[in-house]
């Protein structure tokens, strides 16, 4: 149940971000947005991967992980 709520909250935030981006975006400075956006995507997904290793280590300590 908690998981579902987290997912719904996450998805609502995503939909809201999309909504904001859509109503504000028309003749935007898109080249600049690309530079900022690409950097952001790279950094967030890199931290997502790094977080995987932390979670994995935690599980390892508990002796559950098989990775």
């Amino acid at each position, binding site marked *: 149940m908690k998981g579902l709520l987290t997912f719904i909250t996450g998805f609502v935030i*995503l939909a809201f971000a999309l909504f904001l981006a859509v109503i504000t*975006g028309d*003749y935007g400075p898109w*080249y600049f947005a690309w530079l900022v*956006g690409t950097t*952001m*995507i790279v950094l967030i997904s890199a931290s*997502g*991967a790094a977080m995987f290793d932390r979670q994995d280590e935690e599980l390892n300590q508990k002796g559950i992980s098989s990775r």
Partner: protein
Amino acid sequence: MDMLINPTVVELSRLQFALTALYHFLFVPLTLGLTFILATMETVYVVTGKQIYKEMTQFWGKLFAINFALGVATGLTMEFEFGTNWSMYSHFVGDIFGTPLAIEGLMAFFMESTFVGVMFFGWDRMSPKAHLVVTYLVALGSNLSALWILIANGFMQDPRGGTFDPNTMRMQFTSFVGLIFNPDAQAKFVHTSIAGFVTGSMFVMAVSAYYLLTKKRRDIALRSFRLAAIFGVISTVGVITLGDALGYIDAHAQPTKLAAMEAIWETNPHTVSASWNLIAFPSRTEQKNVFEIGIPYVLTPLLTHSEDTVIPGIKNLEQDAKPHIENGIKAMIALKAYNADHNDTAALATFKQYEKDMGYGFLAKEFAPDQDLAKVNASNLPSVLDKTAKATIPNVWVEFWAFRLMVAAGFFMLVLFAFAAYYSLKNEIEKHPLFLKIALWSVPLPWIACEFGWITAENGRQPWTVYGWLPTFVSASSHSVSYMIFSLIGFVLLYSTFIAAELYLMFKYARLGPQESHHHGEEPAAGGGMAGKPAFAKSSMNRS
């Protein structure tokens, strides 16, 4: 200008270009996205020092290499096609259009291709940090390549930065900055580049899902899945945002494209309650949708980001075009007179008066008796106006559905990536084999979206090669039909071989999966340190 144009040759030239472009774009988006995903994986390796990320970068790099090699081969032919099949187009806009293409070739493509070699063969020859810089340069280079091509395409959609010179009979540069910062080019670049990110993410996620389902290299698969899911979810939000911006820009620059994309036949003055067509079966002959499911109150804010902007329907746009066509015919006749005698200042003055509509005069050529505008007279004018006005509207059916399919794929992928990121962040992705199967089988979606995206962009621009200035009908070279059929068959055979080679190699190496060498305590070798050999040429063994 006075030679009779054979419509079959024009249609065959269009078909050939469409096919080569669609083939080429099967390879491009993966290059655009996978390079940045490789750079991200390598960043984690350099920052954390964990070997597994190096191995991941090398494994996915191997699949990237296959795609890159074949992508380059299909791209080069297209640049030549402008000269061979579209010589009138090249003559008319070559000064402007040629510039970004040349910059692409000299700067971005050289950068990308030089560093791609260093990226594959440089693992053991430079420090990890230096190698990471190289990987970023490859990613940047391939996206810069796309940038210049899309600036060129942006000019075709919304010609800015150039003007027509009646003395040379070509369009000439007025502003380089105008060309580069064209709003259409800006949004188009970001939409396309990020569409590539979505493609790269889906590819990595789907192949990782396959490894998880078949229990192959879970260490690599789980990490790749995580990274791709997050990369994908943010990129999909980006692609949708930019898609909306592109639609908004189209609404201003290309009203005929917008009306076709949304199958709007009538202008609805009640902007607030106007319906947006979720589904429609447009009929060209009946000038209406024979079936439609609309959602009221959505159309105006969605397309114009306002409540009160009126969106002109197709029937209105056709009527609006008629005065432009009439003026355009006058402009073309005056231009011809001025060309015969450069001292004819009266002709030049008439041309200048109607210059902004000259494209419509060009367009009327196809429907004038013997394709000669001088033969348009009071009695045949209404029929020429009628036919030309109808020709200003692109194929509505194709436009409406190509756009719908791209958008549907976009929203489906958004939900898919959101679930994927969620399950992965909770470390429970393996508990959902059905979801993994869906992720695996969704792999073609970004390619489908990209292909339909290009159909939306290019079919929607018809009947123009350069919107409002140069019709497609007068842009082609005067080849013979047999030559066109012969070269078309040649291209289809050659490119089909490329696709077959790509699919064969991709399936083969993706199925084999990453090597397990580091599990035996060896230095991970996949894709790297093989001087003189392509990374993917090595044998790859796999344990599950």
